[in-house]
């Protein structure tokens, strides 16, 4: 009985973790030479047929090389199609950092830093712009090659497997990738969700799709209890309860984690996911 009720009330948190693990599992198959998903989340090959390229990586590669490649544009189209439907759901459902960050957030913090929460998420567009400018100037895709959590996560996985199997790999690359992941985890420990909310340009680009995506948040008819539980559980700091008169919410920061939906279900039962216009 308790498990049943858990899977009903917490169904989104449950489901999205399993989807994340499934995606990582499908990527792990490549080390067994099963060509289901090859590469990483910034660029990959699906079923040895569909090329997939992250839109921000595409932009960076475009401005760094100053030459347009039609193949690269084709590779971004599957991603764009998926995000026209699901918006920024990538961040909450597929990004491996979301899982790692949620583990970090279970640790007890001896201090609390409040000022990071006050940084508006729009600052992230300036950072994404600066990264693109920097890539343009030094002619290297600076975020994707050095800083990206997705690149570093899959690079360290590959490097670890290759190290154990004694295949050619640079040990220093493994060290670099793991270190940058650890730095991100430390950043998360000091400033919760600063990376997701403000710094990460990949999520910023996906956030733009939230304005037009089929998936969005709706408010049902009924009376709000003014408990503000939804605002408290939202780790992306979306102002959920303030938008209740507008009937629907299309925030660039929403990653469709479902925390607000699950919380409200126990109370006023007002918030729901809506797939459609």
């Amino acid at each position, binding site marked *: 009985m308790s498990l049943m009720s858990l899977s009903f009330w917490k169904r989104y948190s449950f489901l999205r973790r399993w989807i994340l*693990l499934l995606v990582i*599992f499908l990527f*792990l198959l*490549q*080390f*067994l*030479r*099963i*060509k289901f998903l*090859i*590469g*990483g989340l*910034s*660029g*990959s*090959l699906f079923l*040895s047929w569909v*090329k*997939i*390229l*992250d839109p921000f*990586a*595409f932009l*960076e*590669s475009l401005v*760094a*090389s*100053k*030459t347009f*490649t039609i*193949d*690269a544009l084709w*590779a971004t189209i599957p991603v764009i199609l998926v995000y026209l439907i699901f918006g920024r759901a990538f961040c909450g459902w597929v990004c491996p950092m979301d899982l790692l960050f949620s583990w970090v957030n279970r640790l007890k913090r001896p201090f609390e830093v409040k000022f990071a929460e006050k940084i508006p998420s729009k600052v992230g567009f300036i950072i994404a712009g600066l990264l693109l400018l920097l890539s343009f100037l030094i*002619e*290297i*895709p600076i975020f*994707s*090659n*050095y800083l*990206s959590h997705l*690149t570093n996560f*899959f*690079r360290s996985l*590959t*490097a670890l*497997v*290759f190290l*154990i*199997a*004694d*295949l*050619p*790999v*640079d*040990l*220093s*690359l*493994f*060290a*670099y990738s793991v270190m940058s992941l650890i730095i991100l985890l430390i950043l998360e420990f000091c400033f919760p969700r600063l990376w997701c909310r403000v710094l990460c340009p990949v999520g910023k680009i996906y956030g733009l799709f939230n304005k037009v995506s089929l998936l969005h948040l709706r408010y049902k008819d009924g009376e709000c209890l003014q408990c503000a539980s939804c605002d408290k559980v939202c780790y992306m700091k979306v102002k959920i309860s303030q938008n209740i008169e507008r009937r629907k919410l299309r925030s660039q920061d929403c990653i469709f984690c479902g925390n607000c939906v699950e919380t409200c279900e126990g109370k006023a039962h007002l918030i729901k996911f809506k797939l459609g216009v």
Partner: protein
Amino acid sequence: MNRRSFLKGLLLTGLTGLGLSSLSPKGALSLAFRKKEDFEPPLVNIPVGGLIRPPGAIPEKEFRAKCISCGVCVNICHSMKYDAIAVVGLSDFRNLGTPYVKDMRDFPCGLCMECPKNCPTGALKRLDKEKVSMGQALIDFSLCFGWNGDVCLSCSKACPLGAFVFDFYNSQWGNQPYINERCVGCGLCVKYCPLGGSAVKVVKKEVYQRIRPEYDQVFNRLLKMSMEERYLVVYNENLPKILSRGRIHEREYR
């Protein structure tokens, strides 16, 4: 919560174990865990001249700008069982994250052309394998069995392009192979050279353009040498070096 994390851990450990057990086919594994060769590489005075890129790579500067370090080429190479492509580490910070062929002695490129076919950014361009230009293989004439009185031909037999790339100069000193400028630099000859430490080295094409007059001078001098001179060179200079490195029969291409 504890039970869940425990189950997750169990799942991950199981997958890792499964993964590692079937990672390398027997052959690759036995080769990989063999004692590493510590001979100095052939042609020490000729530098490689940079990173040997995967086949189909666009010019170096544009390649660095286009590549986003997604790892498709690395992992497609692994799934094709060549494992040739590695990723540059901190030793070359400007190229960090970009792919290169690291160890041609054990993991040369097989020219399957899957990586240029599947590169999502266009850093690797699709082309025929004859038109690939990863580098140029150079034979060290002072170490090669074929140039010092033996018949070996492992390199030419391993070459995926065969007679397109190899020229042979037969004499009483053996069946002497010469790799011409049509070589694409895949490195299969480096792997299958039975000499300890290999007698073949792959250098970048730019380096080859620069050192070619010098290299061909050595080659032409050897061809023109009289019997007595050649005898002295082979027995006094070359054979002691070759014998100290030894012949590794498992590497021979048969």
